[in-house]
């Protein structure tokens, strides 16, 4: 069995760690690229959203590298994502790709449901081993998130253009390299050292923008045209409303690990504007916008793939949130486009706008 999975940002690092730790052979598909998207759009229905197209491309590229089993997340609720694993599998079957499909449905009641699924893949490993493997993967997810957060802080302040990008790649490779939890501790230190060696301007004033929206588009830089990097270069410190480790904790561990920012808290913040589940991350989008405004962020950018229903609901509510709380909000819809000029124009204009607003506020204070 050679297992593969779709790319979603840096998720591959933690999935690969977990599976390899449990002795499963893994094929990591090549990073999402134009080729991935071209493959996906060729075979996916035109009206499907971009995440499906990229997933499909990932699987096809992984198949070429010998993968025979897909692990894919499932879902429930108003968003069509729940069907994705199955539709993707049907499309692949039609194309004569022979894959086994294992769908990790979010557990309905208890974490143990998730454990049982993992055990299907790992066969005769003991429960203890399985839990240790999952923990290892989770530790990596946390480490990656930590490094990424550092990069968000450093990039707008870097003295040499591009130095953060380079260091970040090296730091990720460090984390990927660790084979055991013991090794990981050392490699995390190493990764942090790499990040802290970037020369920065300590006193440079920066703007702060929170990025909210649909999870895949938030986590996969290829799908959002590297928005975090572009903003960083414009002198903006970004934060993202969803990090992988938090998502894992919320949806797979069912909030088992306390002390992490979680879904419930975010949804509570959304209450005055939206008080029921609309699928996907619609509620989180509203809630996170409220929270960013409370934390004094200068602006919020919402990201969504074209036709994403939950986010369209959120999009229609955001103007009210923006008006009530006085925080600038901009929505960006992504699809197959790869031209950067249009995106950059909107980002620059948004940054100009929040910079002016900030100046005005400071002049009044």
């Amino acid at each position: 069995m050679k297992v593969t999975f779709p790319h979603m940002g840096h998720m591959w690092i933690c999935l690969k760690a977990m599976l390899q730790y449990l002795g499963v052979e893994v094929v990591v598909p090549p990073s999402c690229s134009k080729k991935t998207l071209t493959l996906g759009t060729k075979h996916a229905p035109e009206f499907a959203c971009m995440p499906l197209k990229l997933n499909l491309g990932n699987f096809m590229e992984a198949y070429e590298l010998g993968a025979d089993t897909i692990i894919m997340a499932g879902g429930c609720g108003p968003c069509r994502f729940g069907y994705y694993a199955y539709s993707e599998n049907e499309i692949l079957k039609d194309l004569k790709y022979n894959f086994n499909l294992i769908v990790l449905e979010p557990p309905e009641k208890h974490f143990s449901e998730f454990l049982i699924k993992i055990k299907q893949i790992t066969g005769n490993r003991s429960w203890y081993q399985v839990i240790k493997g999952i923990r290892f993967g989770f530790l990596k997810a946390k480490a990656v998130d930590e490094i990424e957060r550092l990069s968000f802080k450093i990039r707008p302040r870097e003295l040499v253009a591009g130095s953060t990008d380079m260091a970040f790649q090296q730091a990720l490779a460090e984390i990927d390299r660790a084979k055991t939890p013991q090794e990981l501790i050392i490699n995390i230190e190493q990764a942090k050292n790499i990040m802290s060696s970037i020369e920065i301007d300590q006193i440079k004033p920066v703007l702060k923008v929170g990025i909210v929206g649909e999870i895949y588009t938030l986590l996969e830089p290829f799908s959002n045209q590297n928005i975090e990097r572009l903003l960083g270069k414009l002198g903006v410190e970004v934060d993202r409303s969803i990090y992988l480790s938090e998502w894992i904790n919320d949806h797979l561990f069912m909030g088992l690990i306390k002390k992490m920012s979680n879904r419930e808290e975010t949804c509570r913040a959304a209450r005055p504007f939206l008080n029921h589940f609309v699928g996907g991350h619609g509620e989180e989008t509203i809630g996170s916008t409220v929270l960013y405004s409370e934390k004094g962020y200068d602006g919020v950018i919402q990201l969504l793939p074209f036709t994403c229903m939950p986010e369209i609901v959120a999009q229609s509510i955001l103007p009210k949130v923006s008006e009530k709380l006085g925080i600038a909000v901009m929505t960006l819809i992504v699809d197959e486009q790869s031209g950067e000029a249009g995106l950059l124009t909107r980002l620059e204009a948004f940054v100009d706008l929040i910079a002016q607003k900030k100046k005005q506020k400071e002049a009044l204070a």
Partner: protein
Amino acid sequence: MKGYLGVDVGSVSTNIVFIDEQGDVKETIYLRTCGQPIVTVQKGLKELAQRLPENTVVRGVGTTGSGRHLAGVVIGADTIKNEITTHAVAASYLVPGVQTILEIGGQDSKIIILRNNVVSDFAMNTVCAAGTGSFLDQQASRLNIAIEDFGPISLKAKAPVRIAGRCAVFAESDMIHKQQMGCALPDILAGLCEALVRNYLNNVGKGKEILEPVVFQGGVAANVGMKKAFEDAIGVSVQIPPYFNVMGAVGAAVLAKDAVKKSVPTRFKGFAVADINYHASSFECSGCANCCEVVEINENEETIARWGDRCGKWSNALAKKEKIS
């Protein structure tokens, strides 16, 4: 004479304006970009140099538009700004106190909301360009009328026909059906204007509070049919400022004036830029599966700028030298 240059390099047109020390617009040049931004800018500069008195001193230059970075490195800009900011600057400069800007250009349409002379919100067309100048151009040529006649003809409408405005494809096929039903041309044109305005207000102006004074600018503002459709739809009068079709360039010039205020010397390379040999070349990077198309701008034999790479490998290598924003 001393003054400032504003250069707006868009996908359809390239505009250059010259403003004097008092900020009055002295010259405007409007050229078709025709997919050759560098050559067009050079041509425009040459023309401008001929029009201006011989002893003219350019004290600052600003660029804007989708080709702003390209134009910026080629002519040596003191400020490079996106078209939303420059349009807002120009409108509030020419129409003091403006609170709403409706702008429809070739490829993009946008709405800008100002309060107390500061941009407080904006939006651009997101996924479709149904309500833009190019679409109007296309329809005019399909109906075999000059774009200049479009507006005046549409004003003769007795009963505008309802056209589906959701997207360009729907609009076009709906128009064809209505033509075949025998509807009069003025009624169809007026209906199209109404459809585009509806599309604009639903997609771009969505949820924004339109307060007076309202300014309508961009190339499409020349179309009186569109002006009327806007006024009918929002129920307030709409002003078209002077220089409505070169607002980006005006804004860029005003910003250039600001940028060099603190007596920084201009980076402008002089009108001789028109004679320098620039060429843009591109290559496909083979570093990863993205196969980015990297564009290089060469001045004589030296590479002065690069972009198009997703990872920053190529652009970062040059960016170290200087950073302009």
